[in-house]
């Protein structure tokens, strides 16, 4: 059986999280009532003109810098002409021959090794609106259009066809999304459409690509991986039978788990690109780029390395903590107040992240300082680990400080030997069977007795002390 080399190139569209649209002042908030975030410019009314949003250009430059791309000093906008009702002007202002940035790469791990996936270009364009097809009886013959999304800035990142498996594609997307989120230029939320991805796939030989197909309609990273697998399988079967792959655009059907032809090469659009005459060429001077370079935050890979070296964390911890910038920031803030990195790491990775999962990080009520307080209570022995979890949950809910909750709920650990001694006496008296078991050599019995003691103290007893006291009592009884 013949072996083929897989070539995959990805086109990723990222909606930038600017406050206003690319060419007008309209808001970009997701989920507003249809057509409430529109104006003559983004509706493409006659006579209006686009004015470029500086922030969107900056976000794209920042991303390009983070992806090691070359910023083109002179870039231009171009019109991409095609008719569709969601496109108000029936052309999209995009970039063609002179994109904002060229080259660069995203690092991924492939077969345990680091691999650079090359980037072809990064450019800026405007998003289209959304069609809503009539569903109820009276509307069935109509489609409705919502132009709220029309004109929202989209950054398109086109990879070179250097991705050689669906798994690598998945890894590329995860890493790319992580970088973009770190930069704070997009939330990359696929469900809200702020990240979209099309793929080009071909099977070829070493150094020679085969005929490619373009694959659309994949709505999550998992679907992208699945879609690629299905398309590769389809192409492989065609080639194995001696048939040819036809150059075409195909759609992924997530229900049928197959790809289907959407349009062939003959029906492919001729977009008639030409330079946008309403916008002069964009000149990006060096000092602007330098200023932006200075505000790029530390990127995930660098931060991962630093966490290992600076805090002596295991790779696993560093990986989990740096996955999201917010978590990594939180961790570092906590360490400032409570300089025991591994203990902080355990807490953040464990209970904190479990609780955070359901919440937006920006709405978290528990400050790094109060997490640090909680941890120092644990360390001092005032609070048991079990109790600490409970306290943390309460802190999450109410935003109250650790010590306040401990005080209010009387959760302070009992480390007072005299009072615990009395309780230990009671426990031993009330459980003669367990005592006998212990005397017969069943060492497990001691755990049961300590458990009883904890129950009586509502979990507040210092566990080490409880253990010590029970053991003493048992030895005294036998001795």
């Amino acid at each position, binding site marked *: 059986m013949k072996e083929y080399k897989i070539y995959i190139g990805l086109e990723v569209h990222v909606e930038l999280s600017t406050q206003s649209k690319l060419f007008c002042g309209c808001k970009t908030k997701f989920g507003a009532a249809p057509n409430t975030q529109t104006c003559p410019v983004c509706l*493409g*009314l*006659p006579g209006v003109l686009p004015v470029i949003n500086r922030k969107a250009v900056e976000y794209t430059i920042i991303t390009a810098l983070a992806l090691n791309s070359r910023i083109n000093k002179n870039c231009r906008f171009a019109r991409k002409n095609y*008719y569709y009702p969601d496109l108000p002007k029936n*052309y999209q202002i995009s970039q063609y021959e002179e994109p904002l940035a060229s080259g660069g790469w995203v690092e991924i791990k492939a077969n345990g090794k680091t691999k650079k996936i090359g980037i072809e270009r990064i450019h800026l364009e405007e998003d289209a609106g959304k069609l809503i097809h009539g569903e109820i009886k009276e509307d069935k013959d109509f489609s409705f259009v919502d132009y709220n999304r029309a004109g929202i800035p989209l950054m398109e990142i086109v990879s070179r066809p250097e991705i050689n498996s669906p798994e690598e594609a998945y890894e590329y997307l995860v890493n790319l999304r992580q970088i973009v989120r770190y930069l704070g230029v997009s939330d990359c939320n696929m469900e809200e459409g702020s990240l979209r991805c099309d793929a080009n796939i071909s099977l070829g030989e070493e150094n020679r690509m085969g005929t490619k197909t373009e694959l659309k309609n994949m709505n999550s990273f998992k679907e992208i991986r699945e879609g690629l697998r299905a398309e590769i399988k389809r192409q492989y079967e065609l080639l194995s039978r001696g048939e040819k792959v036809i150059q075409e655009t195909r759609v992924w059907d997530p229900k049928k788990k197959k790809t289907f032809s959407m349009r062939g090469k003959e029906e492919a659009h*001729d977009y*008639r690109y030409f330079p946008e*005459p*309403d916008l002069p060429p964009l000149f990006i001077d060096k000092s602007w780029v330098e200023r932006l370079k200075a505000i790029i935050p530390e990127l995930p890979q660098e931060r991962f390395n630093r966490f290992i070296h600076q805090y002596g964390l295991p790779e696993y911890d560093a990986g989990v903590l740096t996955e999201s910038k917010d978590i990594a920031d939180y961790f570092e803030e906590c360490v400032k107040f409570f300089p025991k990195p591994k203990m902080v790491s355990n807490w953040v990775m464990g209970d904190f992240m479990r609780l955070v999962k359901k919440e937006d990080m920006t709405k978290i009520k528990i400050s790094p300082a109060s997490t640090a307080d909680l941890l120092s209570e644990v360390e001092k022995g005032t609070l048991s680990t079990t109790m600490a979890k409970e306290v943390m949950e309460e802190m999450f809910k109410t935003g109250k400080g650790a010590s306040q909750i401990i005080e209010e709920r009387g959760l302070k650990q009992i480390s007072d030997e005299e009072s615990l001694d009395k309780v230990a006496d009671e426990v031993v008296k009330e459980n003669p069977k367990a005592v006998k078991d212990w005397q017969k050599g069943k060492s497990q019995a001691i755990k049961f007795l300590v458990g009883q003691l904890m129950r009586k103290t509502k979990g507040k007893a210092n566990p080490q002390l409880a253990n010590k006291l029970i053991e003493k009592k048992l030895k005294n009884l036998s001795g």
Partner: protein
Amino acid sequence: MNIIPELPANKIIKLLKRKEISVEEIVLAQFKRIDEVEDKVKAFISLNKEEAINEAKMWDKKIHEDKKIPPLCGIPIAIKDNICVKNEKTTCGSRILENFSPPYSATVIDKVKNAGCIIIGKTNMDEFAMGSSTENSSFYVTRNPWNPETIPGGSSGGSAASVASGEVTLALGSDTGGSIRQPAALCGIVGMKPTYGRVSRYGLVAFASSLDQIGPLTKDVTDCALLLQVISGKDNKDSTSIDRPVPKYLEYLIPDLQGIKVGLPKEYFVTGIEKEVKESVLQAAKVLEDLGAKVEETSLPHTEYAVATYYLIATAEASSNLARYDGVKYGYRTKEKTNMIDMYKKTRKEGFGDEVKRRIMLGTYVLSKGYYENYYGKALRVRTLIKRDFEKAFEKFDVLLTPTSPTVAFKIGEKIDDPLKMYLSDIFTISANLAGIPGISIPCGFGQNNLPVGLQILGRPFEEETILRVAYAYEQSTEWRKRKPEI
């Protein structure tokens, strides 16, 4: 009051300042004139009488209270119907926008209103400014006030005819390939296309974005300077408008041309030019010499490619600019439709006229895969050569002198079936749009059938003041402006 329709704005302002007349009287006098002649001229698509009178009363009140009044207070103005006026019909002379009223005004509209102008109405034009005779209007043909059998020129034919006939004092037009200068020439008035970027295009319905420019049509050069002053300047809503100081144009209007170097490009005195037109322009050159200018022949060697270059670039941009008229959002939508594509096709088929369709098809073709390089790409390169011709000429000359149009006004219907012949009407005006330079047309005589001849003066980018100075000196030493058409 009967003299108001004959007066330029600079004279009316004096009467107003001396309180010899009220704004309401000015406006009423204009509407009286419109009532008398509009049936014969047909310059307007819509009139704005009620609001114009209300505004006139408002200004009169301010004048009465001795409040500070703006420079063009109370001056009636007509607006070409491709310039958006908030909540007023803006048809572009097209069926497809017959009932379209924009929810915003063009920047120039805000500016003329702030300067005190009173909008009288919107003027007829070739559909989407595509044409040289105003015969391509979807509504009706505008007549030349000098002879109702002839065209007023185009595409700003309505604006030119409204000023020439005395229906209005000032008008705004748009010039993509000569659409202000050519009708000004044919109607015997002054018309200027400013430098590309001098006047905001925001609110001008685009024909060819890299060529379009709004400009004044007036009775004399002084009015042209006054109106240009008001509409010029950087606009944050138009990224192609340029941030350069606007000179005080009136200060340059002196009847003396000492030190001015004038070039006569030889390519503008050969092909298809009427004898009387040529003679009038050469005679004008002599007048300039008498006023102290130095006149010499020069050459713009790429002139012969201008028309071809223009019709590739302008149509390419138009094909894209006019794509938005699809029946989905506003404007005309076909009644008979079976599906979306069908709706697009029928809407555009029924909504656009022949010339617009011709240009959309041509523009679509030249941008298509496989043709782009040979047509559009090449046109862009030739455009650069034409621009360089001018740069070189302006190293030596302050202004260039040419005829505005090779002929005087021609008969209605004469060229309508021969687009190529019609396209040659703009042969002398097109290059200025390709190069982005300013140009003016002023009356310089009368040719065949006693119809007006226009003199074109072209200048360096952003040096409208030099053009105005030459035009003013010439105008003041001749009597052409004093002749009025009899309607």
